[in-house]
């Protein structure tokens, strides 16, 4: 079941005009911003399918940049996000792609600054609900509706157990978990959606584990 809460249906409260093309786009942008942990200096946003055909009419461009500026779906500033981004020195480029994707509302967001880059692919599945399906080349599934942990780790035995042991110790329940890797024995990514918010000390404890490269927390 993709939709779990009644507020996925009666909600979100948002700036119009489209839940999938405006609110969903804002959420995709905001997840990218969350994962990057700071405001990017540049963004290249590729639209596919219905997004590519109708993004101007739906304000998808404005909304996704609003998300990159950390605005929520109901934030009135979304309407001026392109001007605000420019004022902050953020360079934004939009690309209308012709390629056919699995989902008609797909966006690829590449953001970065002098320190680093991030690339994610998000889909907007209806009613403002989104899924992140790819992060830096890793396939993943992230609804953005629960607090989540992204753990980059070496693809070695025991890595997953050591992470889940620490979560168990702190009485944090795992709602959904996904593991993907680029190659056997190389870099891998754990996506863990949990029911409770995760404290900073838990993050530190996880980061200190052997074979764990990076731990990122995404709030609800």
């Amino acid at each position, binding site marked *: 079941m993709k939709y779990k809460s009644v507020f996925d249906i*009666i909600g979100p409260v948002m700036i119009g005009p489209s839940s999938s093309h405006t609110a969903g786009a804002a959420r995709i942008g905001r997840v990218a911003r969350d994962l990057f942990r700071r405001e990017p200096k540049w963004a290249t946003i590729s639209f596919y399918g219905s997004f590519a055909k109708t993004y101007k009419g*739906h304000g998808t461009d404005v909304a996704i940049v609003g998300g990159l500026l950390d605005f929520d779906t109901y934030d009135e500033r979304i309407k001026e996000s392109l001007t605000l981004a420019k004022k902050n020195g953020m360079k934004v480029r939009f690309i209308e792609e012709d390629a056919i994707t699995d989902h008609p509302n797909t966006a690829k967001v590449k953001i970065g600054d002098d320190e680093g880059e991030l690339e994610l692919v998000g889909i907007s599945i209806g009613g403002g609900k989104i899924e992140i399906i790819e992060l830096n080349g890793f396939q993943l599934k992230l609804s953005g509706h629960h607090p989540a942990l992204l753990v980059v780790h070496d693809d070695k035995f025991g890595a997953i157990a050591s992470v889940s042991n620490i979560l168990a110790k702190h009485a944090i329940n795992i709602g959904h978990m996904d593991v993907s890797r680029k190659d056997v024995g190389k870099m891998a990514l754990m996506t863990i959606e949990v029911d409770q918010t995760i404290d900073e000390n838990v993050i530190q404890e996880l980061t200190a584990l052997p074979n764990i490269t990076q731990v990122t927390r995404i709030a609800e």
Partner: protein
Amino acid sequence: MFRNVAELIELAESQNKKISDIMIEQEMEFTKKTREQVVSQMEKNLEVMEEAIEKGIRGVKSHSGLTGGDAVLLQKYIEKGNFLSGQTLLDAVSKAVATNEVNAAMGTICATPTAGSAGVVPGTLFAVKDKLNPTREEMVRYLFTSGAFGFVVANNASISGAAGGCQAEVGSASGMAAAAIVEMAGGTPSQCAEAMAITLKNMLGLVCDPVAGLVEVPCVKRNAMGAANAMVAADMALAGITSRIPCDEVIDAMFKIGQTMPVALRETAQGGLAATPTGRELEAKIFGVSLDKRD
């Protein structure tokens, strides 16, 4: 957790509860929140809906200039008293239009289940309110009942125009509203399901063909008719009329129709009304794009 309408009705009737109760209880279980927390979150959504209707009835205009002001026209017409259909029905239509006009003008709305279809549920609610005089708590229940039916559609079919056409958006919204009207009017859970089935059956095949890709033409008027459809279907169900095809099968049919719908008719602004000469002309005027570009 209920997975379809049949399970939802069974849960409600076996425990002698309302659909709204089942939805509230499921939400409490899923979020581990108290009843008060869940209800108060929905109250906030109700307030947003009320504000949007008030704003739309005072009159708004979208940036493109394609929509706005029709809610005002309809309210004035109702006041004159010479209408042919019915006061509550027209009031629902005008309030649905009001909400979607605000949405088109990039105002604040609550998606029900989507922004493009955000007019139907609040429009019918605030019209039926004047007839049935519900408490605020009952108005919040209306949203949980709509939500319960929308929940089933979202999980078994789709609520996205890009995936399933307008039948998935205004069609779903209309069915959700019909079911909620029935509960508020004192109907049984089964009658709610009948109202949803009757409504959705009459929305099957509706395509998503927004002119210039804007959520304006025909979206605002589709919400108008979605509200009217919900009102009439609710009355039919309350009269004891049932759907020969069970609600879950209607939802399944909607899903399959959406899957076979051409891409041009699923929120791409390539077919239907968007591709009419006037539709293309408006598009070119708004965006300054040559008409051939999208073909």
